[in-house]
């Protein structure tokens, strides 16, 4: 894929994915190879890497320099923050959330996974499934990332043995399935040598599945909308002041889930007022139907009071509104979250006052054990939280809708983003994962 032809530049689809892996699992090498082989590392960038590597006395170019962009990262030789990378093949465009592997950066993996449709979890074939792998799988399950890839790396160091790969893949898949990860694809690779990253490996003819890139190019990116609850958080009311559109009053927003069509009966929450869709404008052009994640403007038959923060839903499929939210959260700020904390809660386009009523438990990601009533959550902690809001909110379960089932907590004093929240049950597992360390039961 050295040159891209004009036909191949036709519009393709976009896949957002995240990588996760421990420090020495070869994540940078994998990312570097994906970028490099898809022609996304250009000559001047490579030259810069070679120049810096040489000035440090390194013999080979250090591909991690491509992805570690900040001074502190280069100084310490670690990645401290999520970075977004872009590459393309003739079949698809990719946005890669490159997240650090350190334990203390759980919040960064949560950030990367929140918008990802796929997670690549790396393991070292010599070590197999380790605590860090379980942590990554648990985060992917918590954030309900629809697809997971287990990349068993460094296969060259275990003699390309099928049984090594099979054992790791089986152990991981069983664990991830138990957590409710809907789809796991295991791929044996060597990021260093290039086996099964972009090109199929000549060293593992026992493997008949896709390469990493092939899988990324072909995994489905949109879901069947027929099962989705349609939701439109109102961002802004469009009311032209000019004489051409004296009566135009449109409710602008990005469809968070499902689809809307002209003529449909809708209800506006939290007020509960009902009307019918009289028109849909897709960035200025009228359409009959629109779906997630299009940014649209809805026009209604009745002139009812609607403003930013309201949620438009089909009348036949309206969520209940509530002032008591129970959620799994990941605390992302340095200052702790405590019971009694007064916060702002942003859900969709609405921001309301809220108070943390209770923190029933904290989750240990290593073994999924629960620590009851931890009193507070500190940075990178994942826990269960009960929140009372000042106004009723139409929240969905995160299991049903990643957009209308999620929220953030904000410090009202300085605006810091404190916490990422997911409403409802934590894991999609049909059966709760066994919890031997605590006997107060599984409430995640």
């Amino acid at each position, binding site marked *: 894929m050295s040159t891209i032809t004009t036909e191949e530049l036709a519009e393709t689809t976009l896949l957002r994915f995240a990588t996760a892996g421990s420090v020495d699992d070869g994540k940078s090498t994998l990312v570097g190879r994906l970028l490099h082989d898809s022609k996304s590392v250009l000559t001047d960038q490579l030259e810069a890497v070679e120049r810096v590597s040489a000035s440090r006395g390194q013999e080979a170019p250090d591909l991690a320099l491509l992805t570690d962009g900040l001074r502190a990262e280069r100084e310490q030789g670690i990645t401290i923050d999520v970075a977004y990378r872009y590459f393309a093949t003739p079949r698809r465009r990719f946005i890669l959330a490159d997240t650090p592997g350190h334990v203390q950066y759980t919040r960064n993996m949560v950030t990367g996974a929140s918008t990802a449709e796929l997670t690549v979890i790396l393991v070292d074939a010599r070590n197999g499934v380790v605590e860090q792998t379980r942590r990554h799988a648990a985060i992917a399950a918590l954030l309900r990332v629809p697809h997971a890839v287990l990349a068993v790396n460094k296969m060259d160091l275990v003699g390309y043995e099928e049984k090594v790969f099979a054992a790791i893949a089986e152990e991981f898949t069983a664990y991830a399935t138990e957590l409710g990860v809907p789809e796991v694809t295991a791929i044996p690779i060597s990021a260093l040598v290039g086996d099964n990253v972009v090109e199929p490996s000549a060293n593992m003819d026992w493997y008949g599945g896709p390469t990493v890139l092939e899988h990324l190019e072909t995994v*489905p990116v949109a879901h069947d909308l027929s099962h989705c609850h349609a939701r439109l958080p109102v961002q802004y009311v469009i009311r032209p002041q000019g004489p051409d559109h004296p009566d135009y009053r449109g409710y602008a927003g990005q469809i968070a889930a499902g689809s809307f069509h002209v003529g449909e009966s809708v209800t506006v929450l939290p007020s509960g007022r009902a009307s019918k869709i009289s028109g849909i404008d897709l960035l200025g052009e009228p359409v009959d139907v629109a779906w997630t994640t299009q940014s649209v403007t809805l026009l209604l038959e009745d002139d009812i009071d609607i403003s930013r923060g309201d949620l438009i839903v089909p009348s036949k499929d309206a969520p209940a509104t509530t002032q008591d939210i129970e959620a799994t959260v990941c605390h992302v700020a340095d200052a702790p979250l405590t019971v009694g904390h007064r916060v702002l809660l942003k859900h969709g386009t609405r921001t309301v006052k809220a108070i943390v009523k209770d923190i029933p438990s904290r989750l240990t990601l290593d073994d999924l054990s629960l620590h009851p009533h931890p009193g507070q959550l500190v940075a990178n902690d994942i826990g269960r939280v009960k929140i009372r809001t000042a106004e009723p909110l139409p929240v969905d379960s995160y299991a049903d809708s990643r957009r209308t089932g999620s929220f953030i907590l904000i410090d009202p004093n300085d605006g810091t983003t404190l916490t990422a929240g997911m409403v409802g049950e934590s894991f999609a597992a049909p059966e709760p994962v066994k919890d031997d360390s605590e006997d107060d039961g599984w409430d995640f």
Partner: protein
Amino acid sequence: MTTAATVSEETDSPYALSHLDALESEAVHIFREVAGEFERPVILFSGGKDSIVMLHLALKAFRPASVPFSLLHVDTGHNFPEVLDYRDRTVEKHGLRLHVASVQDYIDRGVLKERPDGTRNPLQTLPLTEKIQQERFDAVFGGGRRDEEKARAKERVFSLRDEFSQWDPRRQRPELWNLYNGRHAPGEHVRVFPLSNWTELDVWQYIAREGIELPQIYYAHEREVFSRNGMWLTAGEWGGPKDGETVEKRLVRYRTVGDMSCTGAVDSEADSIEKVIVEIAASRLTERGATRADDKMSEAAMEDRKREGYF
């Protein structure tokens, strides 16, 4: 070991958006969030392709109403005349309000000092940040893309700046889902980057799809240029050519548009948008690596300027 690893050619449902539609929808969402949450937003408008695409997206986001933002141009005093002309026509056409922060004014008043190398890009920061304070802008849209540079790869879509307009990469707010946090104290502002997830190629494909007019210097044309530090620069009052540098006529175009003193042209025969796209898709150089001198000053040049308030 693979629970569902079927690889088929039928990958996407009919509801999957094309990558350009997905990027467009995301950018529109960002514009509308700012319109809904801020008092005094402004769009940085240089007349370069990224800011032109930004304005195009803003126009689409609020149709049939007009754009609820004004424009701000940081005029280095070394702008391409074609670009200034484009700027003024655009402002006129859409009935917008334009604010100008002038580097030349600062030099004339003795507040800023001309650099020995003649480049004015680093001098933009002070006029920009003072204008933001004077006008009390609370949200400032920039056309920066994360694919441009590795410090920018770490930039948030909503990027909080303190009262000195400084960027602190270690104190950035995590951005989760599409829940952007625009909270800021009086005196602080938020830089907003609706094109964060776009690449140079996406921008060009979108320009082609939407039929957006650009200043002609983006397309191949004959121009008198001279070589400095491996770049073709346009002669002008800003200080080139110097002794030993000779002017010649070449067929060139620009990949980025900035201050004339540090924005280089590339040899090109691409005189149409289709040819430009093919050329970019085959290029082995990033746009900044090819044509921006200021990014080559040090390993962390962009990060350092961003910390000071550059956009």
